[in-house]
C-alpha cells in the first residue's frame, strides 16, 4: 500500500479507500507524468464526439497507468444500477449486458462511497462483474464520475499482474474522470432533451386533427408549426355540428414539453365533446374551465371557440384570454372585438361572454395562437398590426395561412409553437348549380346550400321554408329512384328570373307515384309550397321544374 492510503482495510478483499485526490491537491504528480497528464486535458479532445472521446480517454489512461483494462460505467438512475458504457480489454462486459447494483461489488461501492477505491487482490473480493475474474484481473482502481456533486458513473482500471494502486494513480484517474464526466453529462442531457422533443412532437402530431372535415359551403385550412427547440401546447380543431353549423376551436395550454402536449390532448378532446353536445360557445368554455380545474395538475389555457352558421354567416364566439380573431375581406383585414374572459383553469367559476359577428360571403375568419404575434420585448399591438397587414385582402384560406406564417415567423423558426386556422365563407354564385350522389345524407347539405343562396336572393323566412321543403322533397324522390341502381347522381339548379326562383331537380331514374295512405305528403308539399310544379319524366330521367315568386309579393 502506497503512502497516503487510508488504512480502511476491508477484510479479505483488502479493499482500500484512498484519500488525497487531484482536486484536493494533496499530492503532486511525479514530474515524468506531467506530459501524460497533459494528454488527459488535451483541448483537442473537445472536438471528439462522446463515443470517440471516451474511447480515446480509455486508451490514454491505459497507456499512462500501464493497465490492461479500463472501463466507464454510467448510472442508470431508474434501476439504481451501473451499466458499462465504454470499455477497453473488457468488451464482454458490454456484450453480456452486465449491470451492477449501486452499493454492491467493486464499481457499485465506488459509486456509493463517492471515493477512489482500490482492490489489491481480487481473490475473495466482493465482485459482481464476472468478466473481471474471467479476464484474470489481479488488482483494480476505481474513481467516481461526478458532475455538480452527483455521481453519474464510475471509471475503473485493472491490472492482470499483481499490483498495488496508490494515491498517485488515483490522481491520474480522477483527472481523466474530471475530463470525461461533464462531456458525458452534456451528451446525456442532450440525448434526453432530444428524446423528449421528438417524443413530444410525435405526441402533439397525434393529438392534432389528421385531416379537417370536408365542408360543403365553407373551406377550412390550418397549420401547426412546432417551436424551434421546444414543444408547446397549441391546438386547433374543426367540428361539424347539427344544422350545417361548424365549430372552430383554437387553444394554447400554458407551458412546454410533453406535459403541455398531453394536456393539450385532453383539452382538445374535452372541447370536442362539449362542442358536439351542441353547447353555446360560452358554455363550452365554462365546461372546459371546470374540467381543467378538476384535473389534479395545475394548468391554464387560452381558448377561442366559435360556432359558424354558413347559411347566415353568423359567427358566435367566446374567448378565454385568447388573442382576438381576425376577419379578412377582399378589401382589408380587421381585429374582432375581444369578447374575452379569463384563461380557463385560473379563477373559480369563470363565466364567459359571447360576441356575435357576421362573416359575409367572400370573407375569411382567422384564429391563431400568440406564438404568431409575440416577439420578446415588443408590445403585443405591434405583432397584431403586423398580422393584420400580412392578412389584408387574402381570403383564400390556404394562401392566408401560408402568407401570414411567411410574413411573421422568423426564418430560423419560431421560439413558441404556432397554430393557425382559417375558415372561408365563399361568395354566393348567381346561379346555384349542385350535383350530389343519390344518398339520403346529401339532402341536409343540399338544403344548407340552397338556403344560403336564397337568403342572398332576398327570400323571406316563409319563402325559405317553402322552397327548401319543395326542393328537398323533389331531391328525396330522386334519391329513392336511385336505390338499388348503383351509384347515381342528381342535380339541382336554382336561378332568379325577375323575382321568381326557378328550381330544377334532375335525376336519371323514373318518377315514382306515391303509394299508401301517408305517402303522398311529398308531392302535396311541393305543390302547396310552390307557385308552379312541373314533373317531366322522360326515358333518360326525371326533371322537376318549380317556380315561386319571392320577397313577400305572394
Amino acid at each position: 500500500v502506497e503512502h497516503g492510503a487510508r488504512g480502511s482495510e476491508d477484510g479479505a478483499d483488502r479493499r482500500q479507500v484512498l484519500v488525497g485526490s487531484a482536486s484536493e491537491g494533496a499530492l503532486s504528480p511525479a514530474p515524468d507524468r506531467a506530459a501524460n497528464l497533459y494528454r488527459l486535458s488535451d483541448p483537442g479532445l473537445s472536438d471528439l464526439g462522446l463515443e470517440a472521446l471516451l474511447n480515446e480517454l480509455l486508451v490514454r489512461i491505459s497507456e499512462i497507468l500501464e493497465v490492461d483494462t479500463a472501463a466507464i460505467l454510467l448510472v442508470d438512475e431508474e434501476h439504481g444500477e451501473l451499466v458499462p458504457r465504454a470499455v477497453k480489454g473488457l468488451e464482454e462486459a458490454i456484450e453480456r449486458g452486465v449491470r451492477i447494483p449501486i452499493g454492491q461489488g467493486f464499481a457499485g461501492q465506488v459509486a456509493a462511497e463517492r471515493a477512489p477505491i482500490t482492490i489489491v487482490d481480487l481473490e475473495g473480493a466482493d465482485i459482481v462483474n464476472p468478466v473481471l475474474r474471467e479476464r484474470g484481473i489481479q488488482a483494480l482502481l476505481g474513481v467516481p464520475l461526478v458532475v455538480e456533486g452527483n455521481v453519474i458513473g464510475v471509471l475503473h482500471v485493472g491490472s492482470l499482474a499483481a499490483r498495488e494502486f496508490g494515491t498517485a494513480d488515483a490522481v491520474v484517474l480522477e483527472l481523466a474522470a474530471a475530463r470525461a464526466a461533464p462531456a458525458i453529462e452534456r451528451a446525456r442531457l442532450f440525448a434526453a432533451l432530444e428524446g423528449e422533443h421528438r417524443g413530444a412532437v410525435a405526441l402533439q402530431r397525434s393529438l392534432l386533427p389528421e385531416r379537417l372535415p370536408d365542408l360543403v359551403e365553407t373551406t377550412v385550412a390550418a397549420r401547426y408549426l412546432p417551436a424551434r427547440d421546444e414543444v408547446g401546447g397549441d391546438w386547433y380543431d374543426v367540428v361539424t355540428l347539427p344544422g350545417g353549423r361548424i365549430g372552430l376551436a383554437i387553444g394554447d395550454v400554458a407551458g412546454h414539453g410533453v406535459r403541455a402536449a398531453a394536456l393539450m390532448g385532453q383539452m382538445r378532446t374535452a372541447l370536442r365533446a362539449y362542442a358536439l353536445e351542441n353547447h353555446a360557445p360560452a358554455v363550452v368554455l365554462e365546461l372546459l374551465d371546470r374540467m381543467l380545474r378538476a384535473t389534479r395538475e395545475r394548468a391554464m389555457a387560452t381558448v377561442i371557440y366559435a360556432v359558424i352558421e354558413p347559411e347566415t354567416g353568423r359567427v358566435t364566439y367566446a374567448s378565454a384570454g385568447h388573442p382576438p380573431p381576425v376577419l379578412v375581406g377582399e378589401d382589408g383585414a380587421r381585429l374582432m372585438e375581444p369578447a374575452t374572459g379569463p384563461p380557463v383553469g385560473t379563477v373559480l367559476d369563470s363565466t364567459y361572454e359571447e360576441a356575435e359577428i357576421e362573416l359575409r360571403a367572400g370573407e375569411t375568419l382567422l384564429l391563431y395562437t400568440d406564438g404568431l404575434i409575440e416577439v420578446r420585448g415588443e408590445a403585443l399591438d405591434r405583432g397584431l398590426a403586423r398580422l393584420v397587414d400580412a392578412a389584408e385582402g387574402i381570403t383564400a384560406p390556404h394562401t392566408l395561412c401560408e402568407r401570414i406564417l411567411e410574413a411573421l415567423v422568423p426564418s430560423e423558426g419560431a421560439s413558441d409553437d404556432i397554430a393557425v386556422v382559417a375558415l372561408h365563407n365563399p361568395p354566393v354564385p348567381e346561379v346555384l348549380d349542385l350535383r350530389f350522389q343519390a344518398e339520403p345524407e346529401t339532402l341536409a347539405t343540399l338544403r344548407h346550400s340552397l338556403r344560403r343562396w336564397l337568403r342572398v336572393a332576398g327570400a323571406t323566412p316563409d319563402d325559405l321554408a317553402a322552397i327548401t321543403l319543395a326542393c328537398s322533397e323533389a331531391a328525396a324522390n330522386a334519391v329513392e329512384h336511385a336505390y338499388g341502381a348503383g351509384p347515381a347522381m342528381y342535380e339541382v339548379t336554382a336561378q332568379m328570373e325577375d323575382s321568381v326562383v326557378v328550381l330544377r331537380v334532375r335525376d336519371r331514374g323514373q318518377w315514382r307515384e306515391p303509394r299508401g295512405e301517408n305517402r303522398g305528403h311529398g308531392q302535396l308539399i311541393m305543390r302547396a309550397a310552390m307557385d308552379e310544379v312541373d314533373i317531366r319524366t322522360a326515358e333518360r330521367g326525371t326533371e322537376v321544374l318549380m317556380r315561386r315568386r319571392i320577397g313577400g309579393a305572394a
Partner: protein
Amino acid sequence: MIGYDVHVGTQDGVLLASLEGEIDMANVDLVRTTVVRAISNEAHGAVLDLSRTAYIDSAGITLLFHMRERLRVRGQELRLVVPPGSPAFAALRYAGVLETLDVRDSVDAAVAELRA
C-alpha cells in the same frame, strides 16, 4: 353528421320529447327509435315538441302519423307542439295535416291536456 338532437324529460308527470335539428329520410328511422324507446307503456301519452325543429319533411310527417298510431294501439295519446311561424308549422301546413294531427301552440297547453 347526426343532424338532430332528442331531449327527453317529463313535465308535470307527462313525457316530453323535444326534437332539435333536421329530420328527413336520412335520419327518420333513428328519430323513431329514440323517441319510441323513451315512451314507456305506463305513460298516459306523450308530448312531442317540434318548436325547435329546424326542418321536417314528408318522411318526418309520416313518422308522426306512425307514432300517433302506435300510441293509440297502446291506449296512449300523442300531442304535437308546433308554434305558428316555425319551420315544422310550414311543413305541416303545406302537407295539409295541421288539422289531422293534434297540434298545439305551446308545451304548457299540450302537457295540461294530457294531465287532465
